[in-house]
């Protein structure tokens, strides 16, 4: 076999393997590995815009959970208190899913084992429907009474925005409080403040 023939055979093999592999490059368990979509760190600090983002949600939930766990009504409680999450009002000009903040706080508090949670008021219809179904569709005719909450958690999200031609400044304030529903007394309150500045001339860090 001449050198030229060997070379053309190698080229043909290389080309055919390339064609057979097609455009869907990647390894086992991967689809579209050559596309522009990449998975990132879910906990990474995100600074795409100055709007309330994932980093703000995470840092707010962490700070307020930490503060809640330190309060004596939870840290020194004989039994883990039963808490119900109430609405956190969004008083800003942008859409913020405030339930995402309280849900995240609830997950962290449940992992701590220091708090028990009752169904949200938004989910009470589902709970009541299940109770009705139990008493009508099964042999069980009586249900135990629903339990009262020891505390409720409420709060507000506020923002102040200022901007000129060069700089845009956004200040977020997320405040929460732990209230005794029997007495109405506010037992704990804390806040998380976030400042974000967008500068047109800035090139970042």
């Amino acid at each position, binding site marked *: 076999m001449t050198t030229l023939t060997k070379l053309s055979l190698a080229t043909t093999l290389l080309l055919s393997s390339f064609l057979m592999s097609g455009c869907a490059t990647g390894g086992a368990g991967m689809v579209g590995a050559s596309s522009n979509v990449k998975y990132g*760190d879910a*906990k*990474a*600090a995100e*600074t795409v815009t100055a709007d309330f983002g994932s*980093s703000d949600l*995470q*840092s707010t939930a*962490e700070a307020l*959970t*930490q503060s809640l*766990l*330190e309060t004596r009504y939870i*840290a020194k409680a004989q039994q883990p208190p039963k808490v119900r999450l109430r609405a956190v009002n969004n008083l800003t000009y942008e859409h913020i899913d405030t339930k995402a903040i309280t849900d995240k706080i609830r997950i*962290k*508090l449940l*992992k*701590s*084992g*220091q708090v028990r949670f009752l169904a949200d008021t938004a989910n009470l219809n589902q709970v009541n429907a299940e109770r009705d179904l139990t008493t009508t569709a099964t042999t069980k005719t009586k249900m135990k009474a629903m339990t009262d909450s020891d505390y409720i958690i409420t709060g507000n999200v506020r923002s102040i925005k200022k901007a000129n031609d060069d700089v845009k400044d956004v200040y977020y304030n997320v405040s929460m409080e732990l209230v005794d529903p029997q007495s109405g007394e506010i037992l704990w309150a804390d806040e998380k403040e976030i400042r974000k500045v967008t500068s047109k001339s800035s090139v*970042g*860090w």
Partner: protein
Amino acid sequence: MLNIKHTLLNITVGSFLLLGISGCAGKNQEHFIGKERVVLKEHRSFQEGKFLKVAATFENEDDTEVEGMVYQVEWLDSHGIVVDQTAWKPFTIIGKQQIHVVDMANRPDVTDYRIVISTPNK
């Protein structure tokens, strides 16, 4: 000769004692990604009820350069396994500024920690 031996022994014992007192806040609890343009001045942990709490101080030792950084605390259990971590928290530190941070684990099985610091490429 005997005196020299005694002095050497004292120095050795003293060094071991000092090492013991300084505790475990060693380099294995710090991890830098990228250039170390920000200094982790000190860090220590203590128990707050059932939870481990970490206090740390970062410093920008440069006079003029403004530095950006993010840090994350990894929470380890008694087997040294990372069971939880904080979100990456961003900071901007101007020259000679110190920033003090406190983070608390929210799981009772956390017994140790590691602070991971990352500074973006310039």
